């Protein structure tokens, strides 16, 4: 059972009335300000006296949306696959299952690689989180969470800790040690608290900060040591299902995808939603940055994966086939960005040619839907986690 928990709210003097109330931080013409909810509503009413009504605002937002579409379309001079026509067609890929990791007793919901390219952590519906050595198939650590449906897990960049969470609405961090007789559960540290299930978590470049996304529609950045909320990201109007941090060279941004069919790109320092893309027809299950950081791909229940370019600010490719009718649950790029591996609810993994938009191969092997898929840090293999209780390493 989960406790009734609330997102940590800042409490303090309001910028306008200077009384102590719980504060909301909002942006007015690009400037951040913190007001109490009374003042926000009062200011909204003042707008009414200036002749603004819900109807005029709706009209303004509709015309702005149209203008945004026009601006984006003006730069749409050619399709990606046309630009890539001269590129060689890819031959058959020599990829097959090399390892099957058995050990979970129920659906495997999430997995993450360690930076050492051989260890990985996986979490399952049975409440267990296991750290594996993918070369030898050894299970190195195991911990049982008090809740079932551990939907998110992540490996720290140093390889010394793992984070996980799910229906308990929290994200907790477990430091790993070399001692085989350790009791991992005793060292558990609760870091994040949301008001709904945790859908994804990821360490930033260090072990000290964790980014989480939740069914409550928000993403949040936490300090691991003090469990303090450093920044929260509001903008999605439904559950946020996935997030991915930009590759480090390109700065402090991350992308998130949710049940509102939108993919949003956020600035981690200001909490601002800098770009938003809404072209999917259904929930966005997974988002992943392209290795150069200039684009990202998304997988959705509408059975398509799409590539969005951040500098052109639009969708540049759709990966779909009439024969694919099941939703895509996870995507990842190969190291050069030429291949996009996508796991689907029809138990297969499809490998797409990113530039040409064609499917290169279908990989069979799992006996139930794929829940998570990640390429290893050095690009030599990728791992898929499935509801058939196993993980498979493909290379």
């Amino acid at each position, binding site marked *: 059972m989960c406790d009734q928990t609330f997102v940590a709210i800042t409490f303090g003097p309001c910028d306008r009335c200077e009384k102590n109330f719980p504060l909301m931080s*909002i942006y007015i013409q690009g400037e951040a300000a913190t007001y109490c909810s009374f003042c*926000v*509503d009062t*200011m*909204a*009413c003042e707008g*009414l006296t200036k002749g603004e009504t819900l109807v005029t*605002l*709706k009209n*303004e*937002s509709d015309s*702005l*949306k149209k203008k*945004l579409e026009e*601006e*984006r379309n003006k*730069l*749409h*001079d*050619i*399709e*990606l696959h046309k*630009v*890539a026509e001269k590129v060689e067609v890819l031959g058959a*890929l*020599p990829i097959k299952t090399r*390892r099957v990791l058995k050990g979970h007793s129920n659906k495997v919901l999430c997995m993450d690689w360690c930076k050492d390219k*051989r260890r990985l952590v996986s979490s399952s519906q049975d409440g267990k989180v296991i750290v594996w050595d*993918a*070369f030898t198939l050894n299970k190195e650590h195991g911990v049982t969470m008090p809740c079932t449906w551990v939907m998110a897990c992540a490996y720290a960049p140093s390889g010394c800790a793992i984070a996980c969470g799910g229906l308990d609405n929290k994200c907790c961090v477990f430091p790993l040690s070399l001692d085989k007789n350790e009791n991992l559960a005793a060292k558990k540290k609760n870091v994040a608290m949301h008001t709904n299930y945790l859908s994804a978590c990821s360490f930033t470049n260090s072990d000290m900060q964790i980014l989480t996304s939740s069914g*409550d*529609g*928000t993403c949040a950045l936490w300090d691991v040591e003090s469990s303090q909320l450093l920044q929260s990201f*509001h903008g999605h*109007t439904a559950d946020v299902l996935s997030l991915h941090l930009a590759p480090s060279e390109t700065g402090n941004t991350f992308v998130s995808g949710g049940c509102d069919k939108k993919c949003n790109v956020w600035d981690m320092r200001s909490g601002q939603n*800098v*770009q*938003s893309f809404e072209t999917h027809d259904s929930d966005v299950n997974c988002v992943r940055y*392209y*290795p*150069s950081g*200039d684009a990202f791909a998304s997988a959705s229940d509408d059975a398509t994966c799409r590539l969005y*370019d951040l*500098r*052109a600010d*639009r969708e*540049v490719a759709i990966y779909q086939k009439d024969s694919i009718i099941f939703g895509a649950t996870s995507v990842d790029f*190969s*190291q*050069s960005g*030429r*291949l996009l591996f996508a796991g689907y609810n029809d138990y297969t993994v499809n490998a797409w040619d*990113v*530039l040409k938009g064609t499917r290169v191969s279908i990989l069979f092997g799992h006996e139930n839907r794929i829940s998570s898929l990640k390429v290893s840090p*050095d*690009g*030599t*293999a*990728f791992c898929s986690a499935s509801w058939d209780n196993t993980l498979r390493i493909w*290379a």
Partner: protein
Amino acid sequence: MTTTMTSNSNLSNMRRLVEQLKLEASVDRIKVSQAAAELQQYCLQNAGKDALLVGMPTGLGSNPFREPRSCHVL
């Protein structure tokens, strides 16, 4: 998000949406042809290092997952 929608909240939400759209409209954009060319260039530049793409030869030292293991039943 579960907030009770009063007409005032609706107004402030709409205001926020309009501000957000204005922000998004002011983003600097480049042409798709240029963006696509750069994506293609990145792919081709790094294709040689991509183990899953080129299929590195099996054998010791190249791809540890493809190495034949001692107790591996084919």
